[in-house]
């Protein structure tokens, strides 16, 4: 008998909004485009560079929080334990429901390298945050100077983009459905 995968729409759609809609479609595209412009300074319009630094790059600060929250909630929302908050399993007597849910959660953690997945994603997030802070410190707060400064920070931008890409890969690797044990 095959078991239908259970999808918790909320976590999955939040992941999709973060990883697909923002990180891959916007953030990495912008970063890579910015790096391409840095590589060919003659073709790089200063307005475009400034717009990226002032509006796009700083979005990271808000989105990093979303990523942290996403990873923090993964175990709760994508463990089979989550099925016990929905019918029909939520109709079980509370006493039985509690131990069964906990057992299933433990089995899930034992069967799949859940901790490793999340740890890898957290590490990638941490690296990206560090790379971002390095960049921000070097760019400085003054809008006028940031473009000039950015032209000298290619290596730092490359490191930030690489860390963000790793984060995207790690988040994409997390299961898209509740894995049944």
């Amino acid at each position, binding site marked *: 008998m095959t078991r239908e995968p259970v999808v918790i*729409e909320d976590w999955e*759609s939040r992941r*999709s909004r973060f*990883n*697909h*809609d923002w*990180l*891959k*479609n*916007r953030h*990495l*595209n*912008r970063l*890579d*485009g*910015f*790096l*391409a*412009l840095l590589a*060919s300074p*003659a*073709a*790089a*319009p200063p307005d*475009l560079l400034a*717009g*990226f630094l002032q*509006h*796009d790059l700083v979005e990271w600060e808000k989105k990093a929080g979303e990523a942290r929250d996403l990873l923090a909630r993964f175990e709760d929302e994508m463990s089979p334990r989550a099925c016990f908050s929905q019918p029909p399993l939520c109709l079980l007597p509370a006493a039985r429901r509690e131990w069964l849910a906990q057992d299933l959660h433990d089995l899930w953690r034992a069967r799949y390298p859940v901790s490793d997945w999340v740890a890898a994603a957290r590490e990638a997030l941490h690296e990206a945050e560090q790379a971002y802070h390095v960049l921000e410190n070097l760019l400085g707060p003054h809008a006028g100077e940031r473009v000039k400064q950015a032209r000298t920070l290619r290596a730092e931008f490359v490191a930030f983009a690489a860390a963000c*890409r790793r984060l*995207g890969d790690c988040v*994409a690797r997390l299961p*898209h459905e509740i894995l049944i044990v």
Partner: protein
Amino acid sequence: MKSLPRILIIDDVYGRAMEAENRDRQLFCARLGVRDVTGRGAAASVENPVAEAVLHSGQMRTDRRVENDLEGVVECVRAGWRHWPRWALILIDMHFQTGPLDPATGEPQGDPRDRDPARYFGLQIIDRLLQDKELAGIPMVILSSMERKQIEQRFARRGVFAFVEKDQLNREGLDVLLWEHGFLEDDRIVGHSLPILAALRAARRVSRIGNTNMLLLGETGTGKELVADYIHRTSRREGPLRKIFVRANDDMFAADLFGYVKGAFTGAMRDRAGEAELAHQGTLFFDEFGNIPGAAQDKLMRLLDTGIRETQRIGDSRTRKLDLQVVLATNRFEILKDGFRRDLLQRANAGNPILLPPLRQRREDIPLLVEFFVRRHEQRLGAEHREISTGAMELLQAASWPGNVRELENEMLKAVSDYRGIRYLSTEHVDAVRGREAVPVAPVPAAVASPRSPGPEVEQHLSLQGVMEEMDQVEFDIESRELWAGQLMGCQGVYARLMARYLQAALAASAIASGEPRPTTAIRMLLGRKTLRTSDAASTIKRLLSVSREAIADLLADESLHLGGTLRWAENLRGGAGRRPAAGQPGKKKG
């Protein structure tokens, strides 16, 4: 001079209109190294762009909502496919966000259905383009950051060449995609019609394989040598391109190809390497491959066998291993059917020849070619620079050009050399082509016409009589015969078996009433006639069963089907005094 390839990118985010600043789009173009040529809102210039790009959102936006616009996409694709510059490649996103606009961001809030892999708008676009006969040949690549696994089977279709992760694509990646799948011009081969671009793409793809053989099939004057040169250039092989022109009854062919040692034959005064050896690590081009003498075919087998690839000089006991790409060209399409060793053809990769289109299939290129040849000969002959009149161009475009590009070049040479001092090329200067106008031909659909292209649609609901008459009237012109080379026999076989099966069914039906098969009754039923002369029935049977006896040999031999006996009955019938076969005893009873 070749122009930049033009690509179409269908993506809801990057394709959004440029009224407001769209940094996502500008940075996307910078990242891919493409010049945005969409409408008026052309973006920042890009150094050494790899392509021009038109970006299309695939959506309609009102004050409050964003909806997908499939027909709008199709029209955009069609508009850029019919005329030059046409799409070299289309990149299609999968997930398109729709729904009410978020007042804060001005972007669609999204609909849960947008994220359903079964309903991805990108897949709907692909399905729709593949259904459209005119557009089905456009090379498509999926560009998405969505999960690939969920749609792997849906997009595994002819014409969809790759799935590229959106955040992984860059300038180099796009260049590779264009090279492998795009319709690209060449700066040495004049023309950008779809048939020539399709042939160049086929040539590029084979040239990447390396140590392989390929067969170029094309009428005289279609540029086989130029394409061989293209294959060599695009293969990036280190060695040289060596050409060998095979003449009919050429006694020296083997010596030229394989080389010889001193004293191997009268006149062999010293050791000499053959063309095959000289082409080591490069490309060996055989022009007029169909002329290779029978005696040399045996020895050629070892050279064409990519697993062996060795050559032996005449008179030498040593063999030499070679690393070669071999291009064989011929205008003799009939070699695919007979007159050539089948195993040699297999080694020549004759099953997948590269078809070079005749000029009549690429009329779109005639103005370019005329311009090119006129300028070339003006310069060569020191003639005046001339304007080419519209009338002259129309006349040249309408001609049939059996000698193809070579004939066109000769005509232009004559027009320039005879009138060196004029500055206007009129219809009178090319009057020689008048009267050579081809019968108007329908444009080649999607121009990636291949031997697999469907033939003309047969009117539905034809009676058997109608079908037979239609089939009798079909006359493949020489061009089609060549394009379908090697496959006509197969088509004929299929037709023969179909007709035999019809007759078999009718014979079985005729036996229901009388207890035994009656040929005249069977044919009467097949033709839907109330009455039928026995002799007419017999001649119909002969027509039905004589299309290809080889193809239905097994059916004729099976006596239980009554087909063999029925055919013998029909063939033995004289002057209408027919006999009909009884079951198991054909030709014994009067019909």
